[in-house]
């Protein structure tokens, strides 16, 4: 364990234990604050700004965001080591965009690796490749969001074009131990068979990628928008039903990739 890593500081907004849907086994998720994208459907709107914010939750003000050292976070992560070992689980860095705090992420990942803890990150890969490259050997599983193959539509719904993301995906996949493509299925944005199949074809073309997760849109973030005093741009859009998700799953599977609904 490196002293320098332990002292590295970062900004997080939550630590969630016993997560069983973001990477293999039982995992602890560390949510890093700050994101480059502004996805309309984002269910963690409090993750987007790097600033420490106040959000109303159940009528009470809650401070979102906390500056911590790797040592402090690691102390909490370590407590569930026995469950990671038993289940083949570990930690998952999520956000926000993990890579916005690349230095903190690197220090935390290395600390975990040195302790024998399996690592994963959830990311959109929307930063320059040179920032990602040093992290690759420290990460056991990449969970990469690919939201749309059409750059203009991607920009319209997330505020960013997708070229950098796709380019990075190609490069990272070549070097990553395990790489899983995750697609949030958002009605009005990417929930047609064609759009999903396009993403699946791309995923299938990536080096060593065998799995794709379809994550159906949900409205659980709604209260948080209210709590932050922000407008919920998804309006009354309802989550895709089970039948439709299965149709999309079949469409994606036609490319030869293995598809899991939910992840």
């Amino acid at each position: 364990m490196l002293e320098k890593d332990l002292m590295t500081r970062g900004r997080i907004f939550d630590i969630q234990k016993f997560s069983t849907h973001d990477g293999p086994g039982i995992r602890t998720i560390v949510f890093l604050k700050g994101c480059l994208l502004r996805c309309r459907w984002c269910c963690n709107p409090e993750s987007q700004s790097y600033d420490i914010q106040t959000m109303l939750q159940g009528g009470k003000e809650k401070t979102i965001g906390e500056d911590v050292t790797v040592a402090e976070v690691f102390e909490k992560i370590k407590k569930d080591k026995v469950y990671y070992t038993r289940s083949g689980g570990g930690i998952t860095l999520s956000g926000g965009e993990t890579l916005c705090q690349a230095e903190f992420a690197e220090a935390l990942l290395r600390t975990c690796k040195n302790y024998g803890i399996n690592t994963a990150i959830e990311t959109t890969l929307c930063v320059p490749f040179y920032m990602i490259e040093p992290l690759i050997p420290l990460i056991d599983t990449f969970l990469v969001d690919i939201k749309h193959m059409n750059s203009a539509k991607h920009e319209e719904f997330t505020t960013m074009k997708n070229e950098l993301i796709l380019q990075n995906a190609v490069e990272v996949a070549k070097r990553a131990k395990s790489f899983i493509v995750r697609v949030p299925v958002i009605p009005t944005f990417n929930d047609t068979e064609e759009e999903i199949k396009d993403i699946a074809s791309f995923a299938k073309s990536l080096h060593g990628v065998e799995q794709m997760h379809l994550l159906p849109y949900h409205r659980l973030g709604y209260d948080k928008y209210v709590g932050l005093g922000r407008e919920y741009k998804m309006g009354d859009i309802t989550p895709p039903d089970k039948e439709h998700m299965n149709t999309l799953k079949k469409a994606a599977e036609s490319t030869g990739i293995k598809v899991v609904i939910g992840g």
Partner: protein
Amino acid sequence: MKYTVETAEKTPRIDLLKKNLMAAKPQIEVERAVLLTESYMKTEGEPMVIRRAKAFQNILENIPIVIRDHELIVGSTAKNSRGCQIFPEFSCQWVEDEFETVATRSADPFEISDENKKILSGIFKYWKGRTTSELAESYMTSATRDAIAANIFTVGNYFFNGVGHVSVRYDKVLKIGYKGIIAEAEAELEKINVGDADYVTKSALLNAVIISASAAITYANRYANLALQMAEKETDATRKKELLNIALNCSRVPANGAETFWEACQSFWFVQMLLQTESNGHSISPGRFDQYMYPYYEAYKSSPEFDKSFAQELVDCVWIKLNDMNKIRDAVSAEGFAGYSMFQNLIVGGQTAEGLDATNDMSFMCIAACMHVMLPQPSFSIRVWNKTPHELLLKAAELTRTGSGLPAYYNDEVIIPALIGRGLTVEDAREYNIIGCVEPQKGGKTWGWHDAAFFNMCRVLELVFSQGEDKGKQISIRTKPVEEIKSFEEFMDVYKVHMNYMIGLLVNADNAIDVAHAERCPLPYLSGMIDGCIESGKTPEQGGAIYNFTGPQGFGVANVADSLYAIKKLVFDEKKITLAKLKETLNANYGKNEASDLVDKIRHELEAHGVKVGEKELAEIKRQLPESSTSEYSDIRDMILSVDKFGNDLEEVDALAREAAYTYTKPLQQYKNPRGGVFHAGLYPVSANVPLGAQTGATPDGRYAYTPMADGVSPSAGMDVSGPTASANSVAKLDHGIASNGTLFNMKFHPSALEGMSGLESFVSLVRGYFDQKGMHVQFNVVSRDTLRDAQLHPEKYQSLIVRVAGYSALFTTLSKSLQDDIINRTEQGGF
């Protein structure tokens, strides 16, 4: 390999049996009480153990017998499915007192006819002054009676009932039959000399064993004859053949050793139901069914007529029978043991005496039987150790996912060393099974007196604030006014003064009852199946068993831990509140009592409508008052709630929880019982955390008066907010080994947490992880809050909804409203 994972499908017969079983409304039947009393009247002046045997014989020779439709395994303690008998020799005053309310009470109602009321009233006159409970009470000191009256602890279970809580040598009866046991007793009689000091008592016991075992054979023969008669009249050829086979089985077992798998199942069942008929205990636990049944299954499996589906059907039929037997308790106890539960704990897996993995085909078939029958009995358990096959755990996890609350998981790696620490041999410890809820012991060798009391640790905490007074009466040592306590250490010392004093009284209460059972209700039928009794010439109650314990359980660990921590932090470390102010706040029930005008109003209203408002009803009204939100008291409560709580994997408060548990577990183990055994603690509440919580004032952890307390070693409801792993880590920090009478950790899961193969895998890992850290027991409720709420509103839609209450499963709709609320309020741990 000794097992295959694949099991046979359920047969249509099982659904038919279940349908008939559930259609029956529980009835009180009187034949046993009549026959018992008749015999007692004739045997006045004879040795008690002989009188007991003769009464047992009179019952078995004359009680009505019945073979129900579709049954393959026969033998019923009552004419009606789920009917119960009455056992006046233990206590009977309450039965008569509750004649008019028993059919309408909220927990476990039973119907009784006017004619039967009259019969029982007549019989009960004979029993006045002759019961175990009356003798027990006369043995207790007045201080003990005061403590019981103040609800510090309750010993109602064995005070009113037989002890039960035993596993016998099922294996022995299966192997040599009662003829073999009679031969053993006769051989012992040959050996002893008329001039021996213990000749008179020993010969009496041995003769009593012979009378009882012979009575069991007679009883089975009556079934053989009945089956024959029914076969003669039967027109359906298939059923006729079944009845003839049943007749053959009953003529062979339990008199002789079993020769077929069907006979083994039938023999087991006679043993089980006759134990109940003799003694009226609950928690008569089949124990390691997969181990002692396996030889008969294995022989069947290698025979040409082997039919896997039929073997499974027989096991399923045994499961149905386990649900056919019932028992009535007094109204108060019924709330503490709600759900008509018989706590017949049956366990699979684990290790052999030599330390090898014990999993076999029967282990998997037992899990399958639970899935087929989906009823609360047996209380199904699984032993887990480092070498437990993963496939067994996955199969068990599938059963967990059904939401039946079964199985409970037990950790060999904690329990075996704990039992060795209590004097068991390594081999015996490895062969442990569970009694009732969570109590480990070696079957066939132990009179464990598990479940000997509920000891309310929060009530003792109240005594620190009242200087040992309860409602103006000095019931404990007079300690200094709480305002004068100057440090947290001193506060702990005063708490321990009251704990130690009350534990002493608890021992007095248990030992008084123990002696009363030995004197008035020795159990000769049981004696033939517990090692040590024939050799020593004593019944288990008289100390005849190899291992003897008394295991009263403490509860409220989490409440006491959180209370002590809040006091340490807010009163002594941060000095935010004085003990005087805290006392005032607790007396005001955090401001809820400000609504006392409202209480009076509701009370008058109810009384105007003819509703009797007693202390219990008053507590319920107060419990349901709205939370206070404005006063200074509620600010204090908010402050208390913001202090760290047990159940979140936080070092300081968890360490205090360990200490809190020690205030009960450590002093207790220095005491001895009249049978030469030691006291050892359990930390589990059955479902008593609800009714006993209703007798407990506000506690310094922010808990309102009269609300449920934490259950077992689980964190307080709603206080563990950091997910299931944090909750489990906290609980694992307690010393489970010292609580060798069992600990109970309840987790509630939303079904989504166990979805798919990965859900099962994660679940198994969670159990493994908790056990790696030396947790002792864990059980799961897999239901959603919404499901339970809907079940409260529409009970008719959820007749078969099973929930894990605490150490056992029950039908949700049969539970009282307050217990239902408690189950709903336990933190729901979801998958994210």
